[in-house]
């Protein structure tokens, strides 16, 4: 049976150059996987200016670069408990530590400016309250998709006495939590 070259754009195809697909192109045509549906848009990174949180910043940079996510740096200042006696017994309360709040706001700003090229457009916020509680509240407010937290990795007596913010955040978080620690096998 006589075959004719099919019509392309209404015209018969002329003699075309034959190009063999090179090895690389052949592999690419077969191996391109479907894009993975990871949509990370907003990451909350609590920092406490210690060396483990530097690790968290490194990871935050990598995530921001890879997924184009918006980073929010958060620092939590513990409030000051006060007690007073107004004549009908002692009353107790907690109040925000204004001095420390101001200092930490400026420290966080300098941190953000130093990280400016790596984390373009990251927000900073300083809250007052219990660390894990404020972190969880901030994650809910900002609709964070991920909390990137560094843990000191205390074990033994330190762990019993100091406890761990990371563990408490993991318990109550409204979204996935990535915990990194200072000495470990890195993924970044």
């Amino acid at each position, binding site marked *: 049976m006589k*075959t004719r*070259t*099919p019509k*392309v754009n209404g015209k018969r*195809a002329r003699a*075309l*150059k*034959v*190009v063999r*697909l*090179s090895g*690389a*192109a052949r592999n*690419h045509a077969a191996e391109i*996987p*479907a894009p*993975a*549906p*990871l*949509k*990370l*848009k907003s990451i909350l990174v609590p920092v406490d200016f210690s060396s483990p949180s530097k690790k968290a910043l490194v*990871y935050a*940079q*990598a995530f921001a*670069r*890879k997924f184009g996510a918006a980073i929010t740096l958060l620092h939590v200042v513990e409030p000051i408990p006060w007690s007073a006696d107004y004549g009908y017994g002692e009353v107790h309360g907690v109040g925000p530590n204004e001095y420390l709040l101001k200092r930490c706001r400026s420290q966080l700003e300098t941190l953000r400016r130093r990280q400016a090229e790596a984390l373009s457009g990251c927000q900073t916020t300083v809250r007052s309250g219990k660390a894990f509680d404020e972190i969880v509240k901030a994650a809910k407010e900002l*609709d*964070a*998709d*991920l909390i990137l937290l560094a*843990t000191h*990795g*205390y*074990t033994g007596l330190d*762990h019993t006495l100091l406890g*761990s913010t*990371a*563990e408490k955040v*993991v*318990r109550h*978080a*409204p*979204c*996935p*939590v*990535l*915990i*990194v*620690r200072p000495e*470990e*096998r*890195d*993924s*970044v």
Partner: protein
Amino acid sequence: MKIQPAKRSGNVLVESGPADELLLERSERFGAEEKTPFKLKNILVPIDFSACSKKALQYAIPFARQFNATLTLVHVVQSNYFPGGEFSGGYDFARAVKELRESGGQQLAKLVLEEVDEFVRVKTAVRAGPPVQEIVAAARELESDLILLSTHGRTGLKHVFLGSVAENIVRLAPCPVLVVREHEREFVAN
């Protein structure tokens, strides 16, 4: 690029222009550039076959595809310290653990067949012992770069307490830990 059927059956005529050559070159380099910030090669996913572990697997598969990493699913048969000899009450714990290991391996294989597609490299492992120590030891041995963990495993106290397994792994892990939970704000499309 114009592709046409040729006179001989089974062959094609391809006309490729300079723009196409450029595209092919760029696509070769594309994968190499992407890999530089992250070096995530091995992901460890502890599985206890609860609904929450399936959630961890749902996260693990897109991660593995995104970073071209190998997944290792590990199931730990809880065998802490059993009484032996005349205190065992006539129950052969060793054999029970062995049978649990075998059935765990089979269930893992079934899970892999059901959930994981062929674009992801998967390995499975079954270990016996105290769960936290076994998972941490597995992470060290396999040199995993990430542990993907789900909370609310088989604890019986849902919605109130985090499974102590997850909490302790967060403490003792040799690598970053990603903790997911069943009902939460997700960043993985279903």
